[in-house]
């Protein structure tokens, strides 16, 4: 090798591989550190007391939402535009997502935004919609999800989910984890009885029941929080 001691500047650096790698690491690391760390420490979303963790049945429903890749076609983020608040409801606040692991804001609206879908339709509507989307929404391009009406939710499985969510930081108590099977059944029976009123026969442990529970919860806490905040002003 030639003598490179006379080299200056970048040409010199190109001969120092380790230093080059360290510099590249630092330069590539700065941006993320500056943007992300303050969000975790000093500038995080303000807590909303109305926003509480998902119930076990809603957790089960959310797992199904993830499994089926609903986020690929549906966003959960109402933007602060007049056209969006007219269509969907109040724009989405950061604090509303406090217990969303993972976040499901989405990046594409092949179908409509779902962040305010909770309470928009009766349970039976969702039941029919997943069975045959075109029955409730003529012209829809969504595929049917009729297997949700046959598959069962496993309480032990959801117990594992709730336990992992607590480890990750969601404030569930010991009693919440122990009581997962009962909580699942109780909330499931409520939905089943509302479906019965609409002439639909379903079982509390059908996957569709869990998905309905999750969808009916979406944006509800946030709506209450926004309403209360406005009342206080």
């Amino acid at each position, binding site marked *: 090798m030639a003598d490179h001691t006379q080299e200056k500047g970048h040409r010199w650096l190109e001969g120092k591989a380790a230093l080059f790698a360290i510099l590249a690491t630092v330069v590539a690391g700065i*941006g993320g550190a500056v*943007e992300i760390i303050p969000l975790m420490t000093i500038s995080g979303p303000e807590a909303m007391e109305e926003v509480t963790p998902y119930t076990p049945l809603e957790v089960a429903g959310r797992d199904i939402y993830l499994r*089926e*890749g609903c986020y*690929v076609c549906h966003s959960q983020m109402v933007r602060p535009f007049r056209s969006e608040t007219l269509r969907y409801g109040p724009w*989405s606040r950061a604090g509303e997502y406090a217990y969303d692991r993972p976040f499901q804001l989405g990046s594409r609206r092949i179908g409509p935004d779902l962040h305010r879908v909770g309470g928009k339709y009766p349970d039976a509507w969702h039941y029919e919609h997943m069975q045959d989307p075109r029955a409730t929404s003529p012209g829809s391009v969504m*595929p049917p999800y009729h297997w949700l009406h046959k598959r069962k939710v496993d309480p032990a499985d959801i117990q594992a989910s709730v336990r992992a969510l607590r480890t*990750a*930081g969601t404030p569930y108590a010991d009693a919440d984890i122990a009581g997962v099977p009962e909580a699942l059944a109780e909330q499931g029976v409520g939905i089943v009885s509302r479906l019965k009123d609409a002439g639909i026969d379903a079982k509390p442990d059908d996957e569709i029941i869990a998905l309905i529970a999750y969808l009916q919860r979406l944006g509800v806490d946030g709506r209450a929080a926004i309403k209360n905040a406005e009342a206080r002003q």
Partner: protein
Amino acid sequence: MTETAPVTPNYDEAVVKKFYVATVLWALVGMLVGVTIALQLAWWPANMDNPYTTFGRLRPLHTNAMVFAFAGNAVFTAIYYSMQRLLKVRMWSDFLSNFHFWGWQLIIVAAAVSLPLGFTQGKEYAELIWPIDIAIAVVWVGFAVNFFATIAIRKVAHLYVAIWFYMSMVITITFLHVVNNLAIPATFTRSYPVFAGMTDGLVQWWYGHNAVGFLLTTPFLGLMYYFFPRAAERPIYSYRLSIIHFWGLVFLYIWAGPHHLLYSGLPDWIQTTGMVFSIMLLAPSWGGMLNGLLTLRGAWDKLRTDPVLKFYVVGVSFYGMSTFEGPMMSIRAVNGLSHFTNWVVGHVHSGTLGWNGMMAFGMLYWLAPRLWGRKLHNEGWATTHFWMATMGIVLYIVSMWAGGLTEGLMWRAVDDGGLLSYPNFLDVVHQLDPFYWTRFAGGLLYLSGAVLMTVNLSLTITGSKRSASAAVSAK
């Protein structure tokens, strides 16, 4: 690049060939899935009425296959071929090279099985479940050790610019992958991230945007810096420009993630920072584009005859186009219209089909004669492939622009009374049908071109036409 080694070093060509073949195979698989999901949007019964082939499960399979299987293997082909030559030394460890190859293919197979089964983390481009994520980390570290050890034993004093770009990938993908996939397992197939809500969203798009930056951009720039000058037989345009745009790109890219979350609940200062850095990103991006294109200065006539250069010139031009479009779309006012629409899909594909695809194809055509010592079976077919791919991209992105603008404008349209002009979401859905069919045709054309390439390359490799450039490849 000084390539005047007196003795032919004993390079590991076998691993290059393996990654090469994997690149071609996964390209076909990934694009076939892409064309399938394009059809599903135009004609929903193509979801095939079972859980495993719905759009929601196949779309992540398509993106993971294209990014990690096609682009990933293409990048590794480029790295293993060029870095041995640039450093004039065989890869440090044959074991690690093969560990990397087989490990990576196994990960891809695991992805191809697990995603249709519905095993997912539910984070875009980071869908793979935690056991696969750990496997990725292990294989990646094996690759990184081999990469840096090869640099350590190099026989050339200076690192050529292609190596800088490869290095930035090896480093950055490591921390992006690890941080974004930090999660608490619930079962073997399910986990929940340690970050929640908007923080999880910010971490995810810091990862997601920079997976584009450091898997689909910097290593492909490295590929460009090695293969383009070699194919053009001209030195790179400007050494100084390569320094400026390398450091500019590596520094600025990381900041741009929040442009995926404009108008969300993310604090305003983070959104604005993301937007401003995205706009600044135009400068180093175009620095790279100009450095690539101007390599052909005084040799533009070669474009008429050489299909490899055709692929490179159009590839680099699409890089320039999409890196102009990206900053524009990250301006709040534009993003308000483009976000959530097909425009974003068109933008992504002008980068992936236009930049990544064309650069990879150019490399594959250039490498086949050199790796296997055979003349390219049919140059005319390569040119035909070039035109099929180019026409396919044009159909794709023009239809997605038109479709994106259509839905974006219809969603926000308000009548004189201040009410929505199209209050039913379904009013908009079928306006997109002609654009979806056009996009399907464009994708099919692009895939057909790739099939023609595969036939051409297969006949080259198994053929008997000895190549004069076989001797050149030893250098």
